């Protein structure tokens, strides 16, 4: 059972001229994504090529030499991927605007285990290879290698890295408090720094005078610089420039509230609906918590607004934030916004507190009357946070709103009753194949919406998904 809260479907005018520039922009963005992925692959290839350019291709004649060479290659690829991971986490605008923060962090996470395997292979293969070449026994070889300069330091770096990766495994991370996990994760910088010296002092590939040395140094320096500038420097500059302060806290419902903040020159943030920031509220006991929250309204009247649902102790404490508290912010992040549009029409699907970015998207996305559909899963008929605002926006902008109230369905993303009636994306959203679908809500539910969209033949670049759980 679904409710047609506002119907604008007849407002659409068929005489729209050629498709807007969404396709062009989307095509450019897709090119950027492809080039970034190619650059990632190329950087790994370069790491291997550095070894080959040093004559490494000829060092596979004997078993010992071949094992050693493989070990060196494993180390090179592992370090290159670590550099990539650093850059992915640095929130570089180029990557941000192409794939968005979520995708970048997802890839960052996926690279952790392969890098670990490569590092273990690096150590094992080198130990084995040198043992074979030198003809002494394993223990003696290990002792010899340990006595080389910078190797003990590198082993410490490896141990730190292993600690970081292990604590990031889902199973382990769940048991840790976020703050503990975060502090341990910071150790990875120490791990990288500890492992760097041995790369330049042992083995000769990056010894003084080689051009490979300059490339490697430059790469490491660039990665650390990116982290410093975009993760440390930019937020500081941002916070100082805009001087954000809490203006008021509005209670919407039990456990749901909006925080409105005021600041200077908010247009300079270039934030649009759908994007999120990482907020730090400078109050006692709060300043060390970083909250990622989407804007729930387009920046307007020198005000920024987020709408929060108290789900854990961190968010619950926010309800007590006092007006006048200073706010530090990082962002805007995310491509759950106009930036990722690729089609004329737009469908916004939300459930629960996922309605926040949907509501701000509804405000700032560009569409003509009748080309936008909003579908909301709500607990009960006229429930739904921010529903009033959404309704008035729909009225003024010519969007169609459909609510599907009720408990979670057995399968799929609609209620069982609605599913029985044959309600799905195809029947709810007119002209679905020519639509950008934006989904925000709990993970399992979002996956069901996305599955529905894919089943209807939508391409990946038409489906946009905001995840709240990283």
């Amino acid at each position, binding site marked *: 059972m679904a409710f047609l809260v506002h119907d604008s479907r007849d407002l659409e005018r068929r005489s729209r001229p050629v498709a807007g520039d969404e396709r062009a922009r989307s095509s450019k963005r897709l090119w950027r994504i492809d080039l970034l992925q190619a650059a990632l692959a190329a950087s790994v290839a370069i790491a291997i090529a550095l070894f*080959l350019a*040093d004559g490494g291709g000829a060092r596979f004649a004997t078993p010992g030499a071949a094992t050693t060479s493989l070990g060196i290659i494993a180390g090179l690829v592992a370090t290159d991927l670590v550099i990539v991971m650093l850059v992915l986490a640095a929130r570089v605008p180029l990557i941000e605007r192409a794939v968005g923060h979520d995708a970048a962090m997802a890839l960052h996470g996926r690279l952790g285990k392969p890098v670990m395997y490569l590092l273990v292979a690096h150590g094992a293969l080198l130990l084995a290879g040198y043992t074979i070449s030198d003809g002494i026994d394993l223990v003696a070889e290990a002792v010899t290698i340990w006595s080389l300069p910078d190797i003990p330091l590198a082993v410490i770096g490896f141990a730190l890295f292993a600690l970081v990766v292990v604590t990031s495994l889902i199973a382990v991370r769940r048991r840790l408090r976020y703050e503990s996990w975060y502090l341990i994760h910071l150790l990875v910088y120490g791990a990288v720094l500890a492992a760097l010296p041995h790369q330049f002092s042992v083995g000769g*590939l990056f010894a003084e005078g080689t051009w490979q040395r300059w490339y490697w140094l430059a790469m490491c320096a660039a990665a650390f610089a990116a982290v410093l500038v975009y993760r440390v420097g930019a937020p500081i500059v941002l916070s100082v420039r805009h001087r954000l302060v809490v203006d008021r806290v509005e209670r919407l419902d039990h456990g749901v509230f909006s925080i409105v903040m005021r600041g200077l020159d908010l247009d300079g943030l270039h934030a649009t609906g759908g994007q999120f920031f990482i907020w730090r509220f400078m109050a006692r006991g709060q300043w060390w918590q970083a909250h990622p929250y989407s804007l729930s309204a387009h920046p307007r009247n020198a005000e920024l607004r987020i709408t929060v649902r108290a789900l854990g102790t961190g968010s619950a404490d926010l309800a007590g934030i006092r007006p006048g508290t200073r706010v530090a912010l990082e962002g805007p992040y995310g491509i759950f916004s106009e930036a990722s549009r690729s089609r004329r029409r737009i469908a916004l699907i939300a459930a629960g507190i996922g309605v926040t970015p949907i509501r701000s998207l509804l405000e700032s996305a560009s569409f003509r009357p009748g080309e936008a559909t909003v579908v909301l899963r709500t607990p009960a008929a006229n429930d739904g946070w921010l529903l009033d605002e959404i309704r008035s926006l729909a009225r003024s902008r010519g969007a169609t709103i459909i609510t599907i109230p009720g408990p979670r369905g057995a399968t799929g993303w609609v209620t069982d009753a609605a599913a029985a009636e044959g309600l799905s994306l195809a029947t709810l959203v007119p002209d679905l194949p020519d639509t950008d679908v934006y989904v925000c809500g709990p993970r399992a539910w979002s996956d069901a919406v996305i599955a529905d969209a894919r089943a209807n033949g939508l391409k990946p670049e038409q489906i946009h998904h905001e995840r709240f759980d990283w």
Partner: protein
Amino acid sequence: MRPRALLLASAASATVIIAGWQLGTLGAVTAPVAQGGSQTVGTTRSTDAATSDPGTADAGTSSDSNAAIDSTSGASDASQATSSTDGTYAGSTVGTRFGDVQVQVTISGGAIADVTALQLTDHDRRSVMISNQAAPILREEVLQAQAASVSMVGGATYTSEAYLQSLQAALDQAGF
């Protein structure tokens, strides 16, 4: 990955790897090195045309940029090559954990007769050397020899007079 991204990535990676491979093979076997030539340091000496010249320093090239440095004390440098291909050639560079070792290939009768590894001096490259430290040793431990089992004798220089009483004189007279 989208197909186009896969294509770009493969093309870029292949190009890079091939380029690296090519650069690597450039540093392989180089100009002939005649054994026994004297070593000069990056200077060209023109000498009498009649006799051989310990000539231009041709550091056995490894692929690193310091090809011009006085590479190995072991490899004498490109003097006149003998007219046949026999001779000693600075060969490919082998990587060990102690840094690069340049291989010296000796060709005799047209076939590779010996391959020895010369360690590049660490003059400009900070590679870690295999420890070559001299340690105390007992007289019985060094390789012993009787005068009858050697063909020549080395030692501190003797004068012509001292030669007459030397082991070398005895060997020379025996006509070895």
